[in-house]
């Protein structure tokens, strides 16, 4: 038995108080952590709600969409809206146009941007700074401002309402960013890697294609994602330049999705889901390639 006031008792009391304080601190920290986590979950829910609402509406039958008290889940589940959206005139043509524009544009842009990235990252030459300033400078000009001259220019060469005109404009629009980003990727790959391959008997071109090119892969993927999203999502240029419905892109098709009786929300949301799907898929599938650090530690010192 320990009498209160003796040395042992005081020590025990102190330890007990300390433990108590620890528990309190722990509780405080844990509730703070819980608060942060709850806020994070709430933010995620708020940000995602519009997208959820689009998908939920797309799967609802018409009478559930036009309900004064909204139904939170598409409980009688239907694919009718998607059938309606696909059956609307020009859907397939416009999907084809979007795919052609994006594919041709990306192939050209990646090739051209890669050459310029190598040129500016691997060589010093007169006018290099001027070129880089131009690359950054033109990104400051919104494409919206250039619609008038672009329209007149393409009109005079007969490329209004034709896909090549739009491809050319998109190419120019994404190129500056692509060159700039790829340049960073190429510059981050140590020249020593190429040089050691050349010592081992590779030619300069061989060393480039066997060593540098594979390592720039993630950079090419990253810029390809960027270009894909920009071109797939672009609206105003396509809207102004492509006037006939068979030549339009998916975003123009989607934006003109109203009837005389106002928008049909079900098919519209289904169409919106279909338009957004490729971009989300592209993002999610290719995201793992974006992990950098492939060359980390390849050269020491």
């Amino acid at each position, binding site marked *: 038995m320990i009498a209160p006031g003796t040395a042992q008792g005081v020590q025990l009391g102190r330890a007990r108080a300390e433990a108590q304080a620890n528990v309190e601190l722990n509780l405080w920290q844990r509730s703070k*952590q819980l608060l*942060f986590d709850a806020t*994070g*979950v709430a933010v*995620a*829910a708020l*940000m*995602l709600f*519009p997208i959820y*609402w*689009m998908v939920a509406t797309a799967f609802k039958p018409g009478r559930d969409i036009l*309900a*004064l*008290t909204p139904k939170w889940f598409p409980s009688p589940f239907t694919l009718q809206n998607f059938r309606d959206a696909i059956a609307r005139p020009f859907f397939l043509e416009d999907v084809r146009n979007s795919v052609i524009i994006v594919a041709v544009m990306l192939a050209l842009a990646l090739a*051209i941007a890669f*050459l*310029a990235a190598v*040129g500016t990252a691997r*060589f010093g*030459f007169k006018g*290099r*700074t001027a070129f880089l*300033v*131009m690359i*950054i400078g*033109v990104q*400051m*000009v*919104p494409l*919206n*401002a*250039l*619609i*008038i*001259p*672009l329209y007149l*220019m393409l009109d005079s060469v007969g490329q209004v309402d034709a896909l090549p005109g739009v491809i050319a404009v998109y*190419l*120019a*629009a994404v*190129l*500056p960013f692509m060159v700039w980003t790829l340049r960073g990727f190429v*510059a981050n790959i140590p020249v020593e890697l190429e040089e050691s391959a050349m010592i081992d008997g590779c030619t300069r071109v061989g060393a480039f294609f066997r060593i540098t090119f594979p390592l720039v892969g993630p950079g090419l993927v990253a810029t390809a994602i960027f270009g894909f999203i920009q071109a*797939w*999502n672009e*609206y*105003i240029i396509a809207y102004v330049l492509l006037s006939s419905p068979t030549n339009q892109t998916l*975003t123009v098709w*989607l*934006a*003109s*999705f*109203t009837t005389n009786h106002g*928008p049909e*929300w079900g098919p519209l949301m289904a169409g*919106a889901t279909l338009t*957004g799907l490729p971009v*989300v898929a592209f*993002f999610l599938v290719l*995201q793992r390639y974006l992990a950098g650090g492939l060359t980390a530690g390849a050269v020491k010192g």
Partner: protein
Amino acid sequence: MGVAVSAPDLEPGPLMLRRRAWLRSNLLPYALISPSVAVIGGILAFPLGMLVWLSLQHYGLRELIAHQGRWVGLDNYRSIVVDPLFHQVIVRSLLFTFACVVLTLVLSTLLSLLLLKVRRVVRVLVMSALVFVWATPVIVSVDIWQWMFDYEFGVMNYLLTQLHVGNFIHHNWFDNPVQGLGVLVLVVVWGAIPFVTITLFAGLLQVPSDVIDAAHVDGADAWQRFWFVTAPILKPIFLIVTCLSTIWDFGVFNQIYVMLNARPSSDYFTIAIYSYRESFGVTQYGLGASIAVVMVIVLVVVTFFYVRETVKVAEIA
């Protein structure tokens, strides 16, 4: 004898080889950048020059058919300077941009700081939500928000009424341009938060934790640690996202144009829509071009600092 003389021509000597290598290594970089220069010069720089030239012309439907404008000097600029609608448009565009940029930056900064505090699972969840929003095409997002703010069956009116914010049954948000533009700010900010948050978060991860700890030991509270330690380190990133947001929001077109079903009333005109209307709506391409030139000038002034900073970084690298 003759063989000896012609030998250097048949077999290139070391001097000539070196000369050819010199030429190649000197011309190679120019060859590499020439396709980019051609595309950017032809499809961005040339139209920019043409825009300025057009703004000095009378260029209507007749001129469009004849491919020949009529020189009027600064007349287009004189007419927009005295145009009261243009003054409204400029003020509206600036206010809209200011609201969007400030909201985007404040919310994104808070969110990126929150991302540092939450546990891993929650961080992955928030990041995935951000990536989903980021990947949503602008036109798709406009359609979604249009549906959510529908006056009759929109989920927003229902929620606001249920939450007793007021009676929003059959409330048309776009009758009143201030409310309508408020909704549009929401659409723009929602779409802009992912890019800015992820960029800022990436920046925050670069801030060395020992500096923060040192400030902590010295007795700085959370606000002081952010304002005096984190924020100055992140300054270049803040500068970049502010400038990019300003460019995107000042030139806003798609959200407003599509939200109002391609028929925005003049209460909703921002500078890009006004320029579009003047040129493609009433076929006054010269006038539209002069408005677009004003837009570019404002942006060049605003983004001058961004370009300077970025070029500085590029020269160090």
